[in-house]
């Protein structure tokens, strides 16, 4: 019964509502504004916590990300859906992950945060969402003419455990080296003492919600990119109904708890350069479409044994390093000094993949 429920429209809507409500509450409980859950931002914070970049305001080992992978892992095992698999052009997925992150950090958010920003009244998110749709639309054009990254192979069970084990390792690091009030370092981990990286809900709460979301999203196949792609490609609204449920639930919760502040200026962790809010998400959307999932979905797939999705997620973490080390990521004052060049290069790389990786499924 439970197994079937999540495959229904009601099931996906219930999951969207759950994510919308709890993401909004995570903001109330300490996460940054309109950033209750942001897969791109949180992986960027993890990159910072590990010292892969030195942007002092965005360094924190986000337990939500750990929870996403482990929650999905538990669900996959519980419902006998754990299938270890690898080998569908992992290096391409790594590069797509890196550029997806670069694009998302020009906008300042993944598709989940784009929804949460809109639900919190941030009008700049409209340009990001339009860019996301545009990027995914370009991706569907490639899919229509046979773009694919080839078949995966089933593999050893332990291969599928690698990403969950990495996340377990990260969890151990947080427990061994917990945050020390007012200090920017604890053992090997780096912690922001100001800025968005310093803002976070209590660890166990973040982890618990992360685990629940991971579990539910694995069951329901929740995917923001798939929602838009399926609508464009097949006129299917199944996944989209979950994403719209997230948006509406987050909006209502924001209104109730007093977090709805409509406008364009002075929105939390956002800038007003509309063209690049749009452009950054065109790049991210195209990269997600070519890789077959939004950053959240890639984590859930990694949890159920998909080693290629794990490589995409690791690519995003490395991309975050490049973003901040090279001055590509935006800040509330606007885009980084080299952001525009990076977006153009990213788009060219995606087009190269799209044009050269077609048909011939062996």
């Amino acid at each position: 019964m439970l197994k079937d429920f999540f495959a229904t429209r009601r099931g996906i809507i219930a999951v969207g509502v759950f994510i919308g409500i709890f993401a909004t509450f995570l903001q109330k409980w300490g996460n940054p504004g309109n950033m209750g859950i942001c897969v791109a931002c949180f992986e960027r914070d993890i990159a910072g916590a590990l010292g892969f970049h030195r942007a002092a305001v965005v360094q924190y080992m986000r337990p939500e990300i750990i929870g996403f992978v482990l929650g999905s892992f538990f669900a996959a095992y519980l419902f006998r859906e754990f299938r270890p698999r690898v080998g569908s052009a992992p290096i391409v997925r790594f590069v797509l992950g890196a550029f997806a992150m670069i694009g998302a950090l020009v906008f300042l958010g993944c598709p989940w945060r784009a929804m949460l920003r809109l639900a919190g009244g941030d009008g700049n998110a409209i340009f990001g969402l339009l860019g996301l749709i545009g990027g995914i639309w370009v991706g569907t054009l490639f899919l229509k003419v046979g773009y694919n990254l080839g078949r995966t192979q089933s593999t050893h069970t332990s291969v599928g455990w690698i990403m969950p084990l990495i996340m377990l390792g990260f969890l151990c690091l947080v427990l061994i080296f917990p945050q020390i009030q007012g200090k920017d370092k604890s053992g090997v981990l780096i912690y922001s003492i100001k800025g968005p990286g310093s803002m976070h809900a209590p660890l166990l709460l973040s982890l618990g919600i992360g685990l629940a979301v991971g579990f539910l999203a694995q069951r329901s196949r929740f995917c923001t990119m798939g929602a838009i792609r399926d609508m464009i490609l097949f006129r299917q609204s199944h996944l989209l109904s979950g994403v719209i449920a997230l948006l509406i639930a987050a909006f209502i919760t924001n209104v109730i708890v007093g977090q709805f502040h409509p406008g364009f200026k002075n929105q939390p962790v956002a800038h007003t350069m509309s063209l690049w809010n749009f452009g950054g998400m065109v790049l991210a959307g195209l990269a997600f479409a070519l890789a077959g999932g939004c950053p959240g979905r890639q984590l859930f797939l990694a949890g159920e044994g998909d080693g290629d999705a794990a490589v995409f997620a690791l690519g995003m973490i490395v991309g975050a390093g490049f973003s901040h080390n090279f001055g590509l990521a935006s800040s509330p004052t606007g885009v980084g000094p080299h952001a525009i060049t990076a977006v153009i290069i990213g788009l060219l790389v995606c087009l190269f993949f799209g044009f050269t990786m077609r048909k011939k499924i062996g």
Partner: protein
Amino acid sequence: MNTIVDARGLSCPQPVIMTMDEIKKVGKGEITIIVDTDTSRENVSRAAISKGWQVKSVEPESTGYRITIAKE
């Protein structure tokens, strides 16, 4: 004549695209699609139903599922 679509190892949305292409090609009759994940099983079944086809059977195999869809 029963045609077989082998979508094993392919991730979303490839199995659905292949099924849709086959549906367009044959128009009616019976198609068997082999997939290796539960996500693909659900997506292929949902796509077939949306095109007015019936899911006749879903047989579990060691490496996934064999889905048979049909239209009179």
